[in-house]
C-alpha cells in the first residue's frame, strides 16, 4: 500500500513527528473551542488574534526571545481586549477585529522593515512552516493542550449554557463573564501554539471549518462537539500526509482538506433535505 509507505516515511523524520503531535493537539483544541466561537458569533476572533500573534513573533525574532514567551501573553491580552470591545457598543465587534488584525499585520511589517540583517522568513510566519517546532515547543504544546481539554470537559455544561443562552445562564447564577474570558484565553493559547506551523493567516480556519462541518450533519450540541473534534483531527492528519507526499505547504493543505470536507457535508445535507421534501 502506497499510502502506508508514505505515512511510514513521514514518521521517520523527527521534525515531522513534532509537527504532527503539535498539530493534532492544536486541531483538537481549536475544533472544540470553535463550536462555541462559531455559535457565539466570535468566529473572527481567531483571525484578529493570529495577526497580532504575527506581530509578536516578528518582534520576538528581532529582540531574540523565545517566540512563545512573548506571543502568548500578547495574544492573551488582545483576546481580553477584543472581548471587551465586543461588549461595549462603541466599536462593533467585526470592526474591532478588523482594526486589531490589520494593526497587528502593520506593526509586524514595520518592525521587519526597520530591522536589517534578521533571518526571519515573513513567508514562514504568514503561511506556516513544518520545521518551526522544537522539542521544547512540543512539550509546551502537549501541556497547554491538556489544560485546554481538561477545562473544556470540566466546564462543559457551563460552556454549553453560556453559548446557548447567556441571559438564562446569568439568571441561574453562572458567572457568564468568567466563562467568556475562559473561552477567549483558551482560544488565544491555541492560536499561538498552532500559528507557526499553520501560519498566521491560516490558523483561524482550524477553529471554523470543523465546527461548521459538524453543524451540517449533527443536531445535538454534544454530537456537534465530538464530530467537530474528530473532523478537525482527521482533516489535519490527512492534510499532513498530502502535504508530505505531494510536497505542498502544510497549513494550506490542511485548510484545503477542511474545505473539501465542508463542501461534501454541505452538498450531502442539501441533497438530503431536498430528498425529504
Amino acid at each position: 500500500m502506497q499510502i502506508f509507505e508514505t505515512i511510514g516515511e513521514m514518521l521517520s523524520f523527527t521534525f515531522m513527528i513534532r509537527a504532527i503531535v503539535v498539530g493534532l493537539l492544536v486541531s483538537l483544541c481549536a475544533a472544540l473551542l470553535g463550536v462555541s466561537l462559531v455559535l457565539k458569533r466570535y468566529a473572527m476572533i481567531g483571525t484578529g488574534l493570529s495577526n497580532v500573534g504575527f506581530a509578536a513573533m516578528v518582534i520576538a525574532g528581532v529582540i531574540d526571545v523565545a517566540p512563545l514567551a512573548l506571543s502568548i501573553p500578547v495574544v492573551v491580552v488582545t483576546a481580553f481586549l477584543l472581548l471587551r470591545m465586543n461588549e461595549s457598543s462603541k466599536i462593533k465587534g467585526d470592526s474591532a477585529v478588523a482594526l486589531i488584525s490589520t494593526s497587528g499585520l502593520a506593526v509586524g511589517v514595520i518592525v521587519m522593515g526597520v530591522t536589517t540583517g534578521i533571518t526571519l522568513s515573513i513567508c514562514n510566519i504568514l503561511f506556516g512552516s513544518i520545521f518551526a517546532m522544537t522539542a521544547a515547543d512540543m512539550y509546551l504544546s502537549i501541556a497547554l493542550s491538556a489544560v485546554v481539554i481538561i477545562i473544556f470537559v470540566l466546564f462543559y455544561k457551563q460552556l454549553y449554557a453560556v453559548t446557548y443562552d447567556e441571559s438564562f445562564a446569568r439568571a441561574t447564577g453562572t458567572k457568564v463573564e468568567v466563562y467568556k474570558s475562559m473561552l477567549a484565553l483558551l482560544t488565544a493559547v491555541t492560536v499561538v501554539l498552532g500559528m507557526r506551523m499553520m501560519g498566521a493567516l491560516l490558523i483561524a480556519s482550524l477553529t471554523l471549518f470543523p465546527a461548521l462541518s459538524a453543524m451540517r450533519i449533527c443536531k445535538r450540541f454534544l454530537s456537534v462537539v465530538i464530530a467537530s473534534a474528530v473532523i478537525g483531527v482527521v482533516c489535519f492528519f490527512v492534510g499532513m500526509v498530502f502535504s508530505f507526499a505531494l510536497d505542498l505547504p502544510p497549513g494550506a493543505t490542511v485548510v484545503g482538506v477542511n474545505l473539501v470536507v465542508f463542501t461534501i457535508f454541505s452538498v450531502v445535507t442539501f441533497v438530503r433535505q431536498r430528498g425529504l421534501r
Partner: protein
Amino acid sequence: MALIICRDAAFAYENKIVVEGLNFQVGQKDYLCIVGENGSGKTTLMKGLLGLMRPKSGTIETGDGLKPTQIGYLPQQTSAQKDFPTSVYEVVISGRLSSRGILPFYSWRDHEAALENMEKLGILPLKKKSFKELSGGQQQRVLLARALCATKKVLLLDEPVSGLDPVVTAEFYHTIEALRRETGIAIIMISHDVRSGVEYATSILHLQNRQVFFGPADEYKESDVGRYFLRGGEFR
C-alpha cells in the same frame, strides 16, 4: 413568609433612576403580572428580581429558603437561538446548572429532574428532537421545562407569549395556570398583554417608572389606571 419582598426599592443606571417606589410581595401560589409600557422599568425590575442588579435604595429580599439563583427564568425568545444545534433534552437539563454548581457533569438526580419536568409539560416524546425543528409553542414548552428545572418555587416569565399565535398563546396560559394550581409554584409574568394578565393573574403590578398600582387583579380592573390601560390608552 413571602417568597419575594420588595421594600421601597429603586433601580438606577449610572445614577439615573429607571424605576422607583417599588413595594410589593410575592407569596406561594401567587400569580403576579407586571405590566407597563416599553421603558417603564419592567426589564430593570426583572434584573433586580434575578439578582443581576442591586437596588440603588430599598431592598429586595427573598424568603422561605429561596435564593435569587433559584428563580426559574423564561427569557424572551432571542434570534441567536434560532439555528442553534441542540436537542430538547440538552436544553432542559441545562436548567439544572445552578443546582450542580461547580461540579462537573450532571448527576442522576439532575437527569431525573429533567425527565420529570418534561413529562409534566408533555414534551417527553420530543426528548431527542432538535430544538430548532420544533414549533414555536413546543419551543416555549421546552424553555419552560428548563425554567422548572431551575426552581421549585418561583417562575419568572419575560414576555412569554410574544411571537406565539393566539391558539398557542391560550394553551400556554392554561399550562401556566395548571402548573400553579398543581405545584403551588408562584408565577411572575412580565407582559404587554394586560387583558390576559388581569384574566389569569391574582395580582397586578403596574409600572410607569414608578409603582402606580399593586394589588389584586379585580381591584386593578376597577381602578382608574387599570381601566385606562385596559382600554388601550396610556396613563400619565
